[in-house]
């Protein structure tokens, strides 16, 4: 399984995370009727894909005490009267705030994958939110949630590997799937752009490793001594940026002994 439209997703999320904090509006991919990404004050608040409308109903039905057809009725009614179905479900006590936030998050991630899979160029549209902001989703969280759905149990292993790295160090775990390196966990102050660049740095090292018959560790350095350490752990690729040159020998020794 791969993520269709992966380069589009990276482009869209990089654009979103680089929006000014005051920016409000929406990003459309292709026709407005297929869905959109709503942005409030620089943050994603809601993503919807028309093709996943039934998925929203099913996610809500799984978290409310209502059968799917009644959730569908609420959605249709609220759409007709231009009212938020989420406010209705909350005010009627059919769902808790925590479960609602989880549904919004899950649905937004799945919608993002569906929209980017259409491979249309993103287009910015001036303020036109479809509903009042509820959750605030960062670009990096959306990215990692989307990829973690591909990687399954590897996500927990990746988190454990990154936990072992010193706090504040920029690092990421990638899952090689279908010839692509998907970031599935990150630590330190990393952005979507950082992860995209890191993957581009790691790719030739991974190709070289494959050529040599599977390396366990690699260190790539510039003439100035900046470096990226790469480890292969089971079916993960862990990349660690060595900002601090004094740490390089320690990182290399730790990885070589592992």
């Amino acid at each position: 399984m791969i993520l269709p439209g992966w380069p589009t997703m990276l482009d869209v999320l990089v654009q979103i995370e680089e929006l000014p904090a005051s920016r409000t509006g929406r990003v459309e991919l292709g026709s407005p009727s297929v869905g959109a990404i709503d942005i409030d004050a620089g943050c994603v608040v809601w993503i919807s894909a028309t093709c996943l409308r039934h998925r929203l109903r099913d996610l809500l039905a799984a978290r409310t005490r209502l059968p799917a057809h009644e959730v569908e009725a609420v959605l249709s009614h609220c759409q007709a009267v231009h009212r938020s179905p989420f406010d209705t479900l909350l005010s009627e006590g059919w769902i808790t705030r925590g479960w609602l936030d989880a549904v919004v998050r899950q649905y937004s991630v799945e919608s993002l994958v569906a929209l980017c899979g259409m491979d249309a160029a993103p287009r910015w549209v001036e303020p036109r939110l479809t509903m009042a902001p509820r959750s605030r989703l960062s670009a990096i969280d959306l990215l990692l949630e989307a990829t973690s759905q591909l990687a399954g149990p590897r996500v927990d292993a990746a988190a454990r590997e990154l936990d072992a790295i010193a706090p504040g160090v920029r690092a990421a775990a990638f899952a090689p799937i279908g010839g692509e390196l998907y970031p599935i966990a990150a630590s330190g102050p990393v952005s979507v752009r950082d992860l995209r660049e890191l993957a581009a740095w790691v790719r030739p090292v991974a190709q070289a490793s494959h050529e040599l018959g599977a390396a366990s560790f690699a260190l790539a350095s510039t003439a100035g001594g900046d470096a990226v350490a790469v480890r292969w752990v089971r079916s993960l690729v862990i990349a660690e940026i060595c900002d601090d040159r004094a740490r390089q020998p320690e990182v290399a020794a730790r990885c070589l002994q592992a």
Partner: protein
Amino acid sequence: MTATEAIRDACTPIPGMVRCVAALVPDGLPLGGVHARRLLDQVPIIRAAIFCLTQRPCPSVGDRAAAPFLEYVLAVGDELVVIEGGRRDPRLALIVVCTREPPLADIRRATREALGRIERELDLCGGGMT
């Protein structure tokens, strides 16, 4: 002095050196080496160097200016493969296979020095020796 002699003289001091080869990238043309007579033995390490050095990704780490990766160390089994990209001429690659016993810092320093010596000895533009 032949290219093979220049490469041998430069690389002999590298601690733990098992074999080495200097080659042109991305063509993959071997210029000479030590304990690297069979072309088949050289192919994987030259191809690895091509992958690493041809794309030349430029990391921009922290507030420092972006610069290309020029040195790669890969641990493969009981060996280390050190790949150095030419400082004067980006077509040159020096690939050294070492044991893992010597300190990594010593291997890296010696390999960089070997590359410097080779770059002083080989005239890639003229196609011959200086």
